[in-house]
């Protein structure tokens, strides 16, 4: 039999679909919350509940999905795909003895190869031990000739199922239930080829074994498989004589009974689903379904009496009635499956096209605006000043394009952090080459930059390994290392104290910045407020370490008080800056200095909140971010000084802006986030608060998630302009700043568009709900936030100046 799924499924998700009988839908996003075990009601759960003994052998994925369900199990690791033999030989070793034992009801043997057929051939004589055994051999997913699986092509979503019963089929079922033509019986073997939806599998097996249907199943008991299992399948068509007829009648009555239960269960699921879900089915659809069900049920009630009272009446009257009954139920079940499929697994192509149109338009507007600003103000992308495409521009486009294309594959999305650090390191090496070319040796900066990237990458790897279930730290670190870490109190003390030291380092940085930068007025006080916040954070963490000493016992209020004070200080700083922006006009003409002051002030006021939300890793990552950003700035400086000495021909290197945005991506992954819903650090939302208020906690979670990857980079972008310039003319600086913001927006928009395209292409892919959809949600939220922040930043930095680029950002 052909066995085809609605969308499709590989390995673990495959088992889920097979055993729960539901459509693989948005529920699978739940997999993204990090629970590998199937928590939905499923076939195996029902088997165990009903006292059936299940024995499993083979692929250990089953153990992750159903940890407590098996009577006995012989799991074998299936990591190495090339090595099919370990699993299969293990299976065969255990299979044959198990076949002679009588202590199981259901035996699952998961083979990776296809040797199973040969093994089972030797066991399949009738009349032996397995006369009453029903054998099913099936694949959980298909694959293409190249061995790819997980895609949406027919080769990948269709697989085969082989069902065999050793019982002599005593009777026939009407030929109308043979959905496909039964292949002729050469050699007197009953062979039949047909197709069944994966959806129907769980329901059919439940019916055969006589256990309740899984709660979430919307499948329909397949007549052929049911007939085969019940030992009533025959191919000779409807036989006229009445003895056979009565057997047939009995079978049909059974089948109608099963369908009655099946329909009741599906109806209950649909009712519960539409009562609990926010956007369920439309009321007309529900009404239609309820109507169909009511009709069928009414018929059933009226007929059941007849079936039992007129049992010995001629078969001709009962049979058509039963047939009609079965039709009514089948009709109901089919329409439910159809409805569910259309609601859960189909996509609104029109809306998708509109979304693409908007993104495409925004990219076009960005490019147009960039070229316009560039031409009007004689800013060039390359130091040599010629109109052609410079190497820097080419490389920036190339890197963005590679990053965009990498979203096509689920593996690259999984390892996005590493890809980003790879690209960042590449751009650093190219910058080294440039600096040597321009005879400005910046080897030290490049080495520091590469070291920072290396550390980031190692942190990302640790984060990635946490993400995979069943992760074992001892794989990465030898056991003596762990033992010594946990054994020595000194080391644990060091891990507690290092963040505090780095926090002090940050405070010193900031102090140096405001004292040497000779900034005056409000900005200075704002920055001083941040230093105060840092002290408070340090105090907070130290008090958490010495929780045992009686002097520090402050109770719940004390624990929450410090974070709340820090949020308040941050908010006060930002509002001060806002009022300053509204009511104060700068007298100074040193625009560069003003810009730097403003940037330092806003960054410092944001940073304290972000650091306390990020927790102990916060100061370390912030220092890494500052060093990385400083190196990018210095390396971006190469071209400016080398080539234009007062010519008025100003340059912006797009590669620098690209590096800046990719650094943000790296920091996102560094801080232990990843693009999935279990990648959010929910604990961060409750720092300073114990009870849950949706808006407040959502804001805190957003700040934690995008703080280092979007908020700080966007507000920090003026550094790229201000620190590289020798010129102080206001006009030049501000047009450059707007160009930098436009470039940043363009990079983000391109990336998100690429994600959208990839999700659209892979909308039938197995991983779509588990991987592509969360990535898409993260990217879109990121883009919305980026545009919002760019608007804020341009309001803040450009202030009273004319801002021609603002309307472009606001689209």
């Amino acid at each position, binding site marked *: 039999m052909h066995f085809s799924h609605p969308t499709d499924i590989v390995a673990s998700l495959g088992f889920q679909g097979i055993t729960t009988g539901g459509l693989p839908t948005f529920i699978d996003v739940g997999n993204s919350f990090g629970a590998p075990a199937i928590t939905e009601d499923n076939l195996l759960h029902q088997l165990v509940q009903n006292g059936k003994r299940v024995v499993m052998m083979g692929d250990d994925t089953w153990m992750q999905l159903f940890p407590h369900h098996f009577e006995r199990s012989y799991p074998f690791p299936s990591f190495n795909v090339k090595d099919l033999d370990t699993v299969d030989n293990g299976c065969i070793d255990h299979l044959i003895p198990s076949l002679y034992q009588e202590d199981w009801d259901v035996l699952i043997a998961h083979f990776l190869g296809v040797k199973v057929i040969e093994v089972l051939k030797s066991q399949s004589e009738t009349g032996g031990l397995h006369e009453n055994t029903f054998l099913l051999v099936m694949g959980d997913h298909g694959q293409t000739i190249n061995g790819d699986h997980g895609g949406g092509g027919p080769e990948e979503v269709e697989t085969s199922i082989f069902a065999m019963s050793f019982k002599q089929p005593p009777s026939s079922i009407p030929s109308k239930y043979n959905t496909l033509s039964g292949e002729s019986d050469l050699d007197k073997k009953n062979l039949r080829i047909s197709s069944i939806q994966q959806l129907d599998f769980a329901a059919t097996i439940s019916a055969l074994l006589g256990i309740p249907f899984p709660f979430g199943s919307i499948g329909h008991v397949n007549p052929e498989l049911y007939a085969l299992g019940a030992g009533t399948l025959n191919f000779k068509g409807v036989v006229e004589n009445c003895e056979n007829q009565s057997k047939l009648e009995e079978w049909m009555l059974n089948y109608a009974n099963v369908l009655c239960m099946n329909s009741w269960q599906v109806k209950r699921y649909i009712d519960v689903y539409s009562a609990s879900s926010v956007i369920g089915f439309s009321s007309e659809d529900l009404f239609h379904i309820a109507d169909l069900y009511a009709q069928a049920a009414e018929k059933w009630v009226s007929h059941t009496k007849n079936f039992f009272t007129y049992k010995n009446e001629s078969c001709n009257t009962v049979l058509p009635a039963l047939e009609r009954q079965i039709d009514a139920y089948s009709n109901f079940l089919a329409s439910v499956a159809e409805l569910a499929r259309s609601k859960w697994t189909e996509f609104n192509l029109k809306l998708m096209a509109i979304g693409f149109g908007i993104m495409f338009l925004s990219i076009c507007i960005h490019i147009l605006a960039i070229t316009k600003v560039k031409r009007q103000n004689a800013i060039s992308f390359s130091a040599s000043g010629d109109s052609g495409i410079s190497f820097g521009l080419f490389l920036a486009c190339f890197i963005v394009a590679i990053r965009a294309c990498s979203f096509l594959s689920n*593996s690259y999305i999984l390892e996005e952090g590493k*890809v980003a650090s*790879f690209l960042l390191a590449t751009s*650093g090496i190219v910058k080294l080459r440039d600096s040597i*070319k321009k005879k400005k040796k910046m080897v030290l900066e490049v080495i520091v930059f*590469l070291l920072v990237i290396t550390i980031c*990458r190692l942190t990302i790897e640790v984060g990635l390994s946490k993400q995979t279930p069943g992760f074992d730290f001892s794989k990465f670190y030898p056991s003596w290392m762990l033992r010594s870490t946990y054994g020595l109190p000194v080391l644990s003390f060091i891990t507690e104290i290092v963040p505090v030291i780095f926090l002090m380092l940050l405070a010193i940085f900031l102090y140096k910045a405001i004292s040497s930068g000779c900034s005056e007025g409000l900005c200075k006080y704002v920055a001083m407020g941040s230093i105060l916040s840092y002290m408070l954070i340090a105090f907070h963490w130290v008090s958490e370490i010495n929780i045992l000493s009686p002097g520090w016992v402050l109770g719940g209020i004390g624990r929450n008080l410090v974070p709340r004070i820090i949020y308040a200080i941050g908010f006060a700083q930002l509002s001060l800056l806002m009022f300053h922006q509204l009511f104060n006009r700068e007298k100074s003409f040193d625009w560069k200095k003003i810009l730097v002051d403003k940037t330092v002030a806003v960054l410092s006021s944001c940073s304290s909140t972000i650091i306390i939300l990020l927790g102990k890793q916060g100061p370390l990552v912030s220092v890494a971010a500052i060093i990385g950003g400083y190196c990018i700035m210095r390396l971006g400086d190469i071209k400016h000084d080398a080539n234009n000495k007062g010519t008025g021909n100003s340059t912006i290197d797009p590669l620098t802006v690209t590096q800046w945005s990719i650094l943000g991506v790296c920091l996102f992954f560094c801080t232990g986030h990843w693009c999935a819903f279990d990648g959010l650090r929910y604990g961060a939302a409750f720092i300073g608060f114990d009870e849950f208020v949706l808006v407040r906690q959502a804001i805190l979670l957003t700040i934690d998630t995008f703080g280092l990857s979007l908020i700080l980079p966007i507000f920090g972008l003026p550094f790229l302009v201000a620190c590289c310039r020798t010129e102080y003319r206001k006009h030049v600086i501000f047009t450059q700043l707007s160009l930098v913001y436009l470039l940043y927006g363009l990079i983000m928009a391109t990336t998100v568009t690429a994600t959208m395209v990839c999700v659209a292409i892979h909308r039938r892919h197995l991983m779509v709900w588990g991987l592509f959809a969360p990535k898409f949600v993260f990217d879109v939220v990121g883009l919305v936030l980026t545009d919002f922040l760019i608007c804020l930043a341009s309001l803040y930095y450009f202030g009273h100046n004319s801002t021609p680029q603002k309307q472009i950002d606001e689209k």
Partner: protein
Amino acid sequence: MKHKRQGRPAGLEAPLALVSAAEAFIVHLICAVGLAVSLWVAHNLLFNSLISHPSQTLFLIWVIECPVVILLYSHYRQNRQQSSYLRAVGRGMLTLLAGALVSAFAAIALGAPVGAKYLSSTINWSMMMSLFAVVPAASVFGSSWTDWQRLFACTKPVGTVDYMICLPAHGAIIGSWFGAWPMPLDWERPWQEWPICVSFGAIAGYLIGMVASFGFVLVRGILQHTKSD
């Protein structure tokens, strides 16, 4: 050509060793044959291949290829009055280690795995990269900074020897960069391990670079002939 040589210090004014296209072809051929021999030895005598035993095979490659490259390129050393043949060879040996350090650092920054398991293959891989990219330049130019800058920062090869050094080196580096791309994919093939596909990329890039350099030298020779006519 004249004004580009102006940058050189006066001591290095000695003319470039005159190298014909045929000579360039022979040098490249010998290098390629050395590479092939080392792969053949690994495959047929030790029953190793790059996929099954990457570390040992890479070791074999650089050990066999090392004398070939250093001895060959030391023939074309610049500044013949001051540096003897032996000195050029010594320079090459020293640079092998220095270049390996640099390429190992670059590889780790770009994402090569760190750990005791990968230590030997990283060392052998970086030795091979150093041999392909850095050693020929060191044998020929020694410590002449302007030449290094011209070849590796500006990528402006001038003479035949410049082409012979510059193009294969760039080929090896760019090839290994692209070779890293299949690594994260979930095909779960054995060659996706570090450093196998990167080494394949490097070797392929090196070979392509040699072919390209021979092509450039040939075209330049023909053009110069027609000019002088």
